[in-house]
């Protein structure tokens, strides 16, 4: 577990970033040091070269013998770092100084060259021919350059290596912190998975990447919770509305099964049971339909159509039904009124509102169905002279399954206005329910409200 945890630490992106930037930093510093070292060493060598070339030239015109003596005696008066000085005759035989022979192939041209003498000590040296034919040679050690090398190496050891370790340590610390946060998020997610839907991911308050992600997930969880609540509510409503017809079906079948029933009575019992089952299936179908409409995928199928025409079509479809119920249908939808949307769904919505109105309107009354021109666009208005909907129930009737209590005896799934509401929402249209005294006015306001980015 510990091993796994430490492996986790090295696998975090924070640690990787720290490692990479530490490595790049170290390489940069190395290159910088190398450049400085190379430049300085070059400069030093150049200074040494100029000095010994100058000295050799000086000897050519002055007194080399004294110098040789000084060097041989170990008390150079010229320069402490002149470690070798020698005078040779024309045939390069030693005359004086502390060097028995010139290094092999050393050019006698008065210019500085690198040379290795005796105990392999690297030196810069120059040799020149005096006017009398003798040859003077001096060599100077290059201690400064080696000193420089040592300084650079120490600086690297003392500076860069700790810096790399520091970067790695900082990376480990940061990623450890990050890892702990991620672990807390994991734990919260695990609790949510276990069904604790009220749980939320921890938010740090720093508005960084992890925070923003956590906030997004939390918003998602809010929405999921809201939807689950809604489904739970629907579940209760389904249970309530399905239980009634199912109980009735059960009772009819039970009674039908009792002895001494004629075949006709049995058939009637079965028919009535089938009708009850059809009603429950109708409720389920309507519910699925609302869900399908609310999914909203149908916006892609929006087209322009003539609203006035579909209002006339719906009126024609319902004319005989109204007539059977002894209700007059007054239609005001002449001409054409173009609208963009899902024609089939709007037909369904208008039909449902009209269906509802016919169901509640008293015999002998009139229902007005009209397309009226509102402020921002057309409105389909359905006005009946029925009992109306009390203000307190107007929001509820638009929900799935709601039926005003006094209408429970009427046939239907109770989902008609729920479908209307779903269709209007899909189009971002408004629905308004008002009083007509007597009766009820339902306005389908076909003006899309501006898109709400939080919901779509």
């Amino acid at each position, binding site marked *: 577990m510990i091993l796994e945890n430490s492996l986790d630490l090295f696998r975090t992106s924070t640690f990787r970033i720290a490692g990479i930037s530490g490595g790049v930093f170290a390489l940069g510093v190395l290159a910088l040091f190398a450049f400085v070292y190379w430049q300085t060493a070059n400069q030093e060598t150049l200074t040494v070269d100029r000095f010994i070339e100058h000295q050799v030239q000086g000897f050519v015109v002055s007194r080399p013998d004294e110098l040789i003596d000084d060097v041989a005696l170990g008390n150079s008066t010229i320069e402490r770092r002149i470690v070798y000085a020698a005078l040779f005759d024309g045939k390069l035989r030693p005359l004086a100084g502390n060097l028995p022979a010139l290094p092999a192939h050393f050019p006698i041209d008065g210019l500085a060259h690198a040379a290795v003498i005796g105990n392999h000590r690297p030196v810069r040296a120059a040799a020149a021919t005096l006017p009398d034919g003798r040859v003077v040679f001096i060599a100077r050690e290059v201690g400064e350059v080696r000193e420089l090398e040592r300084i650079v190496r120490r600086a690297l050891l003392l500076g860069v290596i700790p810096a790399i370790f520091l970067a790695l340590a900082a990376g480990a610390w940061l990623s450890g912190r990050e890892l702990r946060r991620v672990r807390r998020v994991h734990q919260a997610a695990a609790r949510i998975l276990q069904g604790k839907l009220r749980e939320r991911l921890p938010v740090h308050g720093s508005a960084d990447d992890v925070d923003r992600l956590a906030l997004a997930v939390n918003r998602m969880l809010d929405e999921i919770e809201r939807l689950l609540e809604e489904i739970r509510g629907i579940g209760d409503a389904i249970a309530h509305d399905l239980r009634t017809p199912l109980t009735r079906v059960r009772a009819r079948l039970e009674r039908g099964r009792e002895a001494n029933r004629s075949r006709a009575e049995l*058939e009637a019992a079965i028919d009535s049971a*089938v009708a009850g089952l059809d009603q429950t*299936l*109708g409720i389920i*179908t*309507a519910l*699925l*339909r609302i869900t*399908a409409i609310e999914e909203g*995928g*149908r916006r892609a199928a929006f087209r322009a159509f003539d609203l006035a025409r579909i209002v006339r079509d719906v009126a*024609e*479809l*319902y004319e*005989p*039904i109204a007539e*059977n119920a002894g209700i007059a249908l007054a239609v005001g939808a002449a001409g054409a009124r173009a609208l963009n949307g899902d024609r*089939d769904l709007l*037909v*369904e919505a208008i*039909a*449902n509102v009209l*269906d*509802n109105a*016919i*169901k509640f309107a008293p015999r002998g009354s009139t229902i007005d169905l009209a397309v009226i021109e509102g402020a921002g666009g057309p409105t389909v208005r359905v006005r009946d002279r029925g009992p109306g909907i009390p203000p307190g129930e107007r929001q509820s009737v638009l929900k799935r399954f709601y039926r005003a209590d006094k209408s429970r005896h009427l*046939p*239907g*799934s109770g989902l*008609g206005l729920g479908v209307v509401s779903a269709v209007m929402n899909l189009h971002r249209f408004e629905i308004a329910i008002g009083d007509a005294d007597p009766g009820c006015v339902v306005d389908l306001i076909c003006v899309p409200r501006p898109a709400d980015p939080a919901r779509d």
Partner: protein
Amino acid sequence: MQNPTPSPGAKILLIEDDGETRAEIRGALLERGYEVADEATGTGGLAAARRGGFDLLIVDRMLPELDGLAVIETLRAEDVRTPVLVLSALGAVDDRIRGLKAGGDDYLTKPFALGELTARIEALLRRPVETRATVLRVGPLTLDLIDRVARRGEREIELLPREFKLLEYLMRRPDRVVTRDMLLEDVWNYRFLPQTNLVDVHIGKLRRKVDGPGEATLIRGVRGAGFMIVSASEDARPPLGAKA
């Protein structure tokens, strides 16, 4: 009341994974005089359909091994033209469109009444409906599609445009059951389920005009299924709504 089966002996292949549903549908089809073969999986169904010899395929939308739509698409790609009725528990409009696009000829959402199923099977088996005739005749009824005149014997029947369309639809399918859903879809072009028995009211109005007082009933209700216009002599048939 026994539904008439004007296509006796038609061979139907039923591909449905739920055993109980399969047995129910099979039983209902056998009772109505069809020959039925059935398969429980997509691959089995596809193999059976490839062997051929069927007049109609009934394919469930969701099948084990191979999806129902995939079965239909494969058959259509292999140029098998047998009519297909798709059964599905998915009732959304888009699913229906997808089923028809895959090559299905009709789409029926579960749960359905057996009457609806057999009516649609008949409609598929007896395709295509004759469309070139300009005068339709069923028993004493004539419908002149050009002059837009309906007559029963010598009596002219006054019809509203929608009633004319409804009568035309029925007369193109004499002695065959048409369901409420079929009428809503084909005559009114609506794909929603009305809260009220809209179709019954419209048919009722039409029937009062077509079947006058003292005249035999031509437009009949078929219990658990829909409606039918009959061509044969009416006296031999039981009156509307009576049980066999």
